[in-house]
């Protein structure tokens, strides 16, 4: 057993308001440079929809992530070494710019400089790649709020097999938002795909990074990532990806996307996992993936885990942070968070609380207990988003996982309603959903109150051993270029290099 620490994020999709602030603040801070125009380390998709880049979830087409071979062993979907080398100059799985979108801008200065003409000055779109006028066809969020959704419904892979039950007509329409960053996987296929060793996972916090010095621009990371969260900067020729804002989290600050999330849907904390169990966990049959992933995240209160963590070099304050971790609570203790597309077997570390879609039906009171005026919520079976759709997205098809997470959220609502209206809630309500009163309160604190200090429990990085610091702060690493002259005075020895 080798215990390692990992920064993990959970997003409560039920809380997401689809505002895209996360995308903007991330973009402004990290990718508003030339060559990164089309790159959004963080983007938000309307579901159902085909996303960014288009249909990235369809691994039959893109061959991202891992699969089990016939003998049940883990292998990159895109193939092994020989296959990679064969295609190193013509990667068939690589999305082209139109799969993302052709970035554009406008001739803004025309608004000031327009000469006297017959009509008001108007600026129109120009490609940021060619400078030519362009007819806008697609963008990072083209499908916002189901724009054009009916024309592309069959292209959303999560709908495959559900065509019968999913109808996107006015009366039955549903939607939710899916914010996405890099998953900082425990089993990152981007890292495994890179021929240059430029992608790596930081041992101290699990952040997956693309080394800007080592990257040679082969782009196998781009195709290898099933989430398409590694991008190619076409100006620098390097891969770039979400950094989990390491420059901030090292100082204990949340990532930009998290801190600026006005829906307060994001949670960041530490989890401990056993490095030696990752491959095995990624190799279990599909129906066990979610549970195995949960088991891989270790109980931070378990004395054995604590001592193994310490032995493995995890600092005390990181172990302590793991014990207060909101993400561990949501994923493992409360069991309401789930991994995005676990079937890609990358062991993603950004998890999601599936959204309630309480609005029942436009046409009547189906799903309501009309006898009891205090029973104001409908059962999850009657909710709008088909459970199977969520199961395809977040549980490799396992409805049970979705039902459990939704039932707990609904039970919390019912219990808390009883409590605030009548002074006390009926514990049977929550017990049926699998929550004890303590867990209920914890769930409520995390989702309902969501205090800053409880959403983000981020220990600072341990850089005290960084060499230069010791010298600066009374270390004994003397430069050795001073000497005493004959009179005993201190002199600096100046030697030409």
């Amino acid at each position: 057993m080798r215990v390692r620490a990992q920064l993990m994020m959970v997003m409560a999709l039920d809380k997401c308001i689809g505002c895209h602030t996360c995308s903007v603040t991330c973009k402004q801070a990290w990718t508003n440079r030339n060559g990164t125009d089309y790159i959004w380390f963080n983007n938000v998709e309307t579901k159902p929809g085909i996303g960014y880049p288009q249909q990235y979830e369809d691994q039959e087409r893109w061959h991202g992530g891992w699969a089990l071979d016939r003998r049940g062993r883990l292998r990159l979907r895109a193939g092994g070494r020989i296959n990679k080398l064969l295609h190193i100059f013509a990667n068939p799985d690589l999305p082209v710019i139109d799969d993302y979108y052709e970035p554009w801008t406008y001739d803004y200065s025309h608004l000031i400089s327009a000469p006297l003409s017959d009509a008001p000055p108007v600026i129109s779109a120009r490609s940021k790649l060619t400078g030519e006028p362009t007819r806008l066809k697609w963008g990072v969020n083209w499908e916002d709020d189901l724009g054009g959704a009916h024309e592309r419904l069959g292209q959303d892979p999560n709908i495959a097999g559900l065509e019968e039950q999913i109808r996107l007509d006015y009366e039955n329409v549903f939607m939710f938002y899916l914010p996405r960053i890099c998953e900082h996987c425990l089993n990152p296929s981007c890292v495994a795909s890179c021929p240059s060793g430029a992608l790596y996972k930081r041992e101290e916090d699990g952040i997956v990074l693309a080394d800007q010095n080592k990257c040679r621009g082969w782009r196998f990371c781009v195709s290898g990532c099933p989430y398409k969260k590694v991008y190619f900067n076409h100006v620098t020729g390097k891969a770039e990806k979400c950094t989990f804002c390491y420059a901030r989290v090292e100082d204990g600050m949340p990532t930009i996307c998290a801190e600026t999330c006005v829906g307060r849907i994001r949670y960041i904390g530490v989890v401990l996992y056993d490095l030696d169990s990752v491959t095995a966990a990624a190799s279990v049959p599909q129906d066990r993936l979610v549970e195995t992933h949960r088991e891989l995240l270790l109980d931070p209160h378990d004395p054995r885990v604590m001592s193994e963590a310490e032995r493995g070099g995890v600092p005390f304050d990181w172990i302590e942070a793991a014990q207060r971790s909101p993400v561990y609570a949501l994923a493992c203790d409360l069991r309401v968070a789930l991994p995005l597309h676990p079937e890609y077997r990358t062991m993603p570390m950004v998890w999601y609380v599936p959204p309630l879609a309480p609005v029942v039906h436009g046409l009547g009171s189906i799903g309501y207990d009309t006898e009891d005026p205090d029973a104001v919520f409908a059962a999850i079976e009657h909710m709008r988003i088909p459970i199977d759709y969520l199961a395809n997205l977040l549980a490799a098809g396992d409805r049970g996982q979705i039902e459990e997470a939704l039932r707990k959220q609904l039970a919390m609502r019912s219990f808390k309603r009883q409590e605030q209206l009548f002074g006390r809630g009926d514990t049977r309500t929550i017990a049926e959903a699998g929550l004890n009163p303590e867990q209920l309160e914890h769930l409520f604190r995390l989702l309902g109150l969501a205090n800053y200090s409880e959403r983000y429990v981020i220990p600072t990085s341990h850089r005290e051993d960084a060499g230069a610091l010791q010298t600066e702060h009374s270390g004994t690493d003397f430069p050795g270029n001073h000497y005493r002259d004959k009179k005993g005075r201190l002199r600096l020895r100046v030697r030409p290099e």
Partner: protein
Amino acid sequence: MEQPENPDPAAHGSSRPAAQALLGRRRYLSRGEPSDDGRVILRCDDSLGEEFYRDRWRHDTEVRSTHGVNCTGSCSWKVFVRDGIISWETQAVDYPETRPGMPDHEPRGCPRGATFSWYVYNPSRVRYPYVRGVLLDLWHQARADHDDPVDAWASIMADPGKAGSYKEARGRGGFVRATWDEAYEIIAAAHVHTIKEHGPDRVAAFTPLPAMSPVSYTSGSRYMALTGGAHLSFYDWYADLPPSSPQVFGDQTDVPETAEWWNSSYLVVWGSNIPVTRTPDSHFMVEARYRGQKVVVVAPDYAEHTKFADDWLHVAPGSDSALAMAMGHVILSEFHVRDRVPGFLEYVKTYTDMPFLVTLEAHDDGAYLPGRFLTAADLGEGVDDAAWKTVLVDSRTADPVVPNGSLGFRWSESGKGRWNLDLGDVDPALTFLDGEHDAVQVQFPRFDVDPAGVLLRGVPARRVGGHLVTTVYDLLLAQYGVARDGLPGQWPGGYDDAEHPYTPAWQEQLTTVPAEVVERVAREFAHNAQITGGRSMIVLGAGINHWFNSDVTYRAIITLLVACGCIGRNGGGWAHYVGQEKIRTFTGWVTLAHALDWSRPPRQCNGTAWFYLATDQWRYEVYRADELSSPLAKGLFEELAPIDCLSQAVRMGWQVTYPTFDRNPLELADEARRSGRPVGEYVADSLRDGSLRFAIEDPDDPANFPRLMFLWRANVLGSSGKGHEYFLRHLLGARDNASAAETPPDRRPRDVVWRNDAPEGKLDLLVNLDFRMTSSCHFGDIVLPAATWYEKYDLSMTDMHPFVHSFNAAIDPPWEARSDWDAFKGLAEVFSTLAAKHLGVRADLVATSLQHDSPGEIAQPGGAVRDWRSGDVEPHPGVNMPALALVERDYGTVHEKLTSLGPLVESVGIGTKGVQWKPAAAVEWLREANERVVSGVGDDRPRLETAEHVAEAILALSGTTNGALAHEGFRQLEERVGRPLAHLVDGERDRHIRWSDAQIRPQKTLTSPEWSGNESGERQYSAFTINVEELKPWHTLTGRMHSFLDHDWLAEYGEQLPIYRPPLNMPDHYPEIAELGSDSVVLRYLTPHSKWSIHSEYQDDLVMLTLHRGGPTMWLSVEDAGRIGVRDNDWLESWNRNGVVDCRAVVSPRIPEGLCYVYHAKDRHVETPRNERTGSSGGTENSLTRILIKPTHMIGGYAQLSYGFNYYGCTGIQRDEVCVVRRRGQDVSFG
């Protein structure tokens, strides 16, 4: 961290062959070291590879600021600066906590604000002063001929060819760079010339929303007030004012802060897409759901907020009042009549007009009409202000009683100490049904049928003081169709009776919402209020407020809250969120902004009325005023066009407009003085004999044109300008796309002069101060470069949260930009120099409306229209015509006054809503804090030299930020109310929030008589909690919340009580759309607030454009798009008589058939192609709208129905329009 040793890789459980394969490959190509389990490279070094992003993150400083955009957000932001360049921004997270057990505010912000730094450096930023070349050439030429700039401007004005040449070029580009000095000189010369030749009230200023940056607002408005210019209101013009609020509450708008959503256990969200328009606060709603709150959404589309709803009532657009009436029917039937819930009945007895008596007037066939409130005057009581003291019956004695608290106790001597809601031993009778009564039939209009019909329903009546009367409550139950035993009339047979209004089954036909859902939601809503003591809340928004008949819709909704005892309760109440109107530091702001420290009264008028006249939209009216009259009307509007009603409202002192008279008010003052008679008498006589006329009676006479307009912090042309194309044609003389025919002769105004040649280009100069090339800038003459929000100092506040916080300059204004304060200060200096020579000291005759919260509100008793023009009564200024005042203007001192705090602050006092204080100590403090002026008219007064001085003064003079003043105000109010109030601020009396406090962190404001809620300590702000808890009256006729309104004009429209009124029937007025081919479809044209902009701000911002479709769009249903062969992203043309819009389609199943959405406000300069038919570029979303004014919004001089700036007046509605949509040619050209 070092890697632990692992001598045996095989012990680590990896899938060896796969790992080995990777390991092998990596060794083949890379010098990097893989982890020893071979599956993934783990690294823990501080390699240079990580330096790239570390360096990217580095910054030098972090400055607190915010965004001065017309949005209720008022979010505090951290602006990051590196090497003198603003790099980006993230939200501040240091708001003071709410209270334990409740979510906090952080982080407040939205994607739009998060992009703002883009504006600072983008190429379309206004960096220098610009003047259109045509004008600048003329100016250079004129200056060469004239030494004096004013003479130079006069020479251009004297030559119609010259004036026409630059007006005709408006909107067509051709700006050239100028210097500040040159721009100032042109503007000041034009301003002086206009005052001299035409009058100060021919100059108009428009800037909205002081709460979003009160100092910046004040810069120009103070300049304008000191020069005598007219300041236009925005809140009503934006249709953000709910007229129902003055009507019901006697208050402009007062609502709970958003954290209050948390305290509600039943939240109905009605016409307000919270995640889009209240982005930073929506989490309170989302999180309150986990506390067990039920959320009901009423909206036609499946929108962002609908996804959170437990019930979605997908109401047909514009039919909301039918839904609300049916919910009211259920609630009144079950909780009032069947169950008589004691809490509800006590509440309405104490806090509403429901027990008050209303006379019944005999009408047809023995039936009656509701008349007026019975008053002490009707009982023959000789008390003062008897006509303003309303009457109820004490159920214990069955005798009439004149309870405390009505308006008759507010201004009279005898009312001192009795203006309160304390009923003592009196138990008001809500209904006469329980006692002795006659059942009489009352007629009520119904507008659900065409033509409108009449309902006959019985009420219990009695004779009181010789008058046949009933209670408001009895009328209300009858109106709602709540049958009670023993009353005659036409009543619904049950909820499933679809024939008789206002049942759930009846509404289903209009709204499409299933009756059973309405019934259940109404019951849940009331039941929740019953068991929680009123914690049911309704969020209302633009989706219902922007309609012509929004006031009755709102009243029907407010009735649900009132009937269930939810108003004035934490966790309950009405939450109207449209427009950031709440200036928490109201008193300090209003004093400085309108220069009340130097001279009073200022010129303020309803923006809608001003624009309606100035842009000649009245020439295209299709409606007659009486077309919407009740079938029971008396005919007051017969033959009248809407402008005739407005004209009458002006002459009766209800709604004064500017210019007011057909001559220069400086000359009129001189004339009056020369006559040797009192000015009021002189003007009244001149009006009566016709030698003087109101400007509104002939708006197209050049003598009555507005001449000069200043816009700052505003984009009228690209955002709020309903009837955009008419602005272009008539106000500006630019090219336009309107195709409407003028009103045919038989429907033209009766009282207002119709000139056959409509003027084009009324305005001589349009000046914009902005940092962005808006449509207003494009169509203006001079564009001055403003500092952005990251380059200046100001305050920010909102009703959404309880804080006041600050703008701070992250960098000083780049290029030649100047802050609003500095820009107007500089202009004032140039103006003062020219004005000293040309204008000197003059008397200015200022006409103002009869003001709410002043004795002017008791000028016209009974709500009866007694027009002096009819000859029956004499005209009396301030009584039945505008109030008149002579204001001395020493034009050479404008700059000195602008930059010092004048003496009226403590000599006369300042205040709001009838509460005044004389803050001598605060002024003394400001002398030290801001330093004192040492010469000129401001000698020894506090300086207002910088924006920071102004901010400091605003904070020092307001009760919400200076506890001593709040205390003084409550003390004074106690004398009138006769009940203790000052205890509300006992704990906050010594708090004074200084400018430096607001710079450090958002500061929670204090409870103050400026507002109606108690927010002391950790309590959330909810409107009217002081009224409910301390028995302080509402500022209405009865002193209570009103269900019944008895003004003549409201009766004429059949709107005395809440009622269903359908949207305006536009298709009937647009015969041209009846002849359309199959390639076109007619849709209801809706313009909701955008997800990608705040009004027109951000809609041209590259990040926002990238996040959606890269330009303006129209949302359509799948069905309608299919009908006209449109696919998602196709180019469309939409048109109606007002203009054309060209944009792309977003087709979506979340949109219902029959409507389309074009986000307000799309401006017109991005990705807007030329229209195929007109050849000119497609317009703004307001190219398809037109101003429609409702006569009932012009009422004045009558209790809560009296004028106040941004308080009561015509709203600029735009939701009742329809448009034609077709697929246009897909080859488009721009610009």
